[in-house]
């Protein structure tokens, strides 16, 4: 049996936002105008083999008179459900109370009730008619207090709602993290026993999807770093003069392609988090207007000192492999030498970008080559920007419609949270990528840096 939930309440109290957040779908229309939803909209959520439906409903418009009608048609509690059924079938009511008919229909069809109120505004008695009507339906229900602007009246609401609903939860549609979202669904497994198995399956499916998303994000990041670091643009030309004329346009095309490569991966990341309409402004930051201005790279990547340390660690890790091969007879000169070489090359190459090369062809003519990127900080910059976007997406809900503003990231802070071995592996992997060498299981090395993975590990530790 597929669980169905009707999200109901006063107009403009965040019902559509709750649906968008719970369904993790930014296709749901959300408007600051009241009365936008005039008909029920069912959103079918499918995660793996588990599924459930959320029904966005129009707000109550005439609850006082609708309740008066119901009271007139039910003399005792046992007749209330039938009175609601009569209400739905009455032609007069269909004319007089179109919104109430629309929102009560899925409920009387078996959907559980999620009643939404705004916790930033005071409770008032006019809500009682709505809650009373919902109680008359006899369906499983819970109330969500959505603090739209602030949390000032939450307690007042809790006291009032507690008299009508068994479960009352505070749920901020703009901030609710996945655990909070799952707890709403889980509450119904105690209210509706027949849905317990289905809801348990749903929760398990959500958790599996979260783990898969972490894997996919790491793979995507690895693909971006590998491709961007290895990217080279070639153009066949007849003469050296022709090559020199082409040079600047080749350079422009090369950098444009790198930017679009990064943007495409950012878009894929948004899709991975089910954001299909989210606009982000990473490129338009006033101080990061140019991805290829090396002076500004320290904001996203590493500063010169951090970069040299990272290069030394990567060089030392490579040199240590030689030491291991020689069973220590090299007196650890491999690690020492590798570290020094790495640090020096990072120092010298901190401001270097991509090389332009011209190579003769055996059959005549030349091939002009732009790239690959030489700068050691380049993979760190890509990494920093990607991780920052991932963190913001992780902390966002699908109810938000504002532009995603990406400000400064703290890459070094994220790297320093890794263990020494993880840091060494990361620096070595990025060093290999920047030398266009394949990195074995790159995604696994990058995974501990992801915000979602850190949150998952922290949850596991708490449990």
């Amino acid at each position, binding site marked *: 049996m597929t669980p169905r939930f009707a999200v109901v309440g006063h*107009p403009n109290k965040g019902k559509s936002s709750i649906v968008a957040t719970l369904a993790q779908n930014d296709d749901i*229309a959300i408007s600051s*105008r009241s009365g936008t939803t005039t008909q029920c909209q069912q959103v079918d959520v499918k995660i793996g083999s588990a599924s459930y439906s959320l029904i966005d409903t129009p707000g109550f418009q005439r609850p006082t008179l609708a309740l008066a009608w119901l009271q007139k048609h039910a003399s005792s509690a046992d007749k209330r459900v039938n009175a609601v059924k009569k209400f739905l079938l009455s032609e007069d009511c269909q004319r007089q109370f179109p919104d109430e008919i629309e929102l009560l229909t899925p409920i009387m069809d078996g959907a559980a009730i999620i009643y939404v109120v705004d916790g930033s505004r005071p409770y008032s008695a006019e809500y009682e008619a709505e809650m009373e009507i919902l109680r008359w339906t006899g369906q499983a229900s819970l109330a969500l207090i959505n603090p739209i602007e602030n949390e000032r009246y939450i307690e007042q609401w809790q006291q009032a709602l507690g008299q009508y609903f068994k479960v009352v939860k505070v749920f901020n549609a703009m901030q609710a993290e996945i655990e909070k979202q799952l707890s709403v669904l889980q509450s119904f497994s105690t209210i509706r026993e027949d849905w317990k198995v289905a809801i348990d399956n749903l929760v398990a499916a959500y958790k599996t999807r979260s783990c898969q998303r972490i894997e996919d994000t790491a793979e995507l990041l690895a*693909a971006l770093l590998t491709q961007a670091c290895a990217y080279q643009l070639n153009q066949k030309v007849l003469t050296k003069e022709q090559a020199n004329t082409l040079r600047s346009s080749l350079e422009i095309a090369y950098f444009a392609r790198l930017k679009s490569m990064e943007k495409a*991966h950012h878009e894929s990341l948004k899709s991975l988090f089910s954001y299909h309409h989210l606009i982000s402004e990473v490129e338009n930051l006033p101080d990061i207007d140019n991805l290829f201005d090396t002076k500004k790279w320290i904001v996203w990547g590493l500063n010169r000192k951090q970069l040299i340390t990272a290069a030394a660690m990567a060089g030392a890790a490579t040199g240590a492999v030689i030491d291991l091969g020689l069973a220590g007879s090299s007196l650890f000169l491999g690690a020492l030498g590798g570290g020094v070489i790495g640090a020096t090359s990072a120092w010298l190459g901190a401001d270097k970008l991509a090389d332009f090369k011209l190579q003769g062809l055996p059959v005549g003519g030349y091939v002009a080559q732009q790239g*690959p990127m030489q700068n050691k900080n380049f993979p760190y910059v890509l990494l920093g920007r990607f991780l920052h976007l991932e963190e913001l997406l992780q902390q966002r809900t699908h109810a938000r419609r504002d532009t995603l503003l990406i400000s400064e990231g703290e890459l070094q802070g994220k790297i320093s949270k890794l263990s020494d071995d993880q840091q060494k592996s990361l620096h070595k992997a990025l060093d290999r990528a920047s030398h266009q060498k394949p990195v*074995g299981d790159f995604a696994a090395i990058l995974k501990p840096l992801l915000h979602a993975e850190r949150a998952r590990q922290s949850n596991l530790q708490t449990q």
Partner: protein
Amino acid sequence: MTHPTSHMEARITLALSFLGLLLGIFVSVGVLAGDDQGRVNLLFLLLLFAFLPVLSLLLSLVLLLMKQNGSAALLVSLPFWPKEFLQAQMNIELGNQRRSWLFFESQVLSLAFAAGSIIVFIALLLGTDVNFVWRSTLLSATDLLPILQLISIPWGFWIDAQPSLDLLQQSQNSRITGGASTYSENWWQFVLAAQLTYNLIPRAVLLGLARWHYKNKTRLSSQFERGDTTVNKRRLADPETLATIVYTRPDSYQLLDWSNAPEHCRRFITQSFGKPVDLSSLSANSDVHSLRHSAELISQVVLVRSWEPPMGELKDVMQLLDSKTLNFILPLDWDGISIKAANNTHLQEWQRFAASLSNSLVEWKVLQPGEHS
């Protein structure tokens, strides 16, 4: 239009097929060439055509389960490749399908190797007389027979390709005793069946599965990027006209309180707009006609909570007011002790509502306290 990535993928697949085929041919020629008398050691053949393929198949499956990339990944990470080739394969925009693609390419390589081996074997059977023998210092024909019978279980229906003690004894060769085989060419069916069963067919099946998995992942990924969704998008309401906001106090007015406002709110209204001629509560159950003031020319001011959106039952009541003069909706925002300026979004909501109530006979405006209030 074909994506450039598809071209590069096709070229890499072709290169790996060619490499696998060559490897298969060279290794098989090496083993099947035999010794100076053309004798081929059956046990070496079994090692090459049955044990190694099974081992490699198991390794492939283990790597897949461990989420490793397979032999193609190991191959492309070898240092002897030209830099251009490495860059080309890394430039392929595989995104998170890279692992599936590498696993698929690993199967291409293995299948090509199996095909190369079988081609050589059949070519040698056609072009020369292959003399199969086996040698062992420790094993006798009776020891070996159960192993070969176990291997040949899958092609039990093919009688001619089954091993027998007689055949084993006849083909045993010993350099110590100088024993020679007489029926040794009869092994070819057994060897061919082993190649097909343990090498070619499983690899072909795995290749089919790997291809399906890779294509499926690519399709899912492109759907993801396109943002396919089954949810219907709702059209937002068309722009509506907004009623005017006025700050001028009406000369004389009747205050109809829909909001059940607290006392400090009513005091504020009196301070801002003067004392109302009449003050009445308004609700969905009100008898609107009894509320109509005797002096028909005075304005009616309906007090509402600015943060609560206008509802149908308020609209029903206001339409019944039926006044012939200018009327006002007064949205106010307050908390326990003070009055606050109404939020712009809320005000616009009330402006739209007031405009929807106005007609040629009645005009509704939104009233707000001015700066002097």
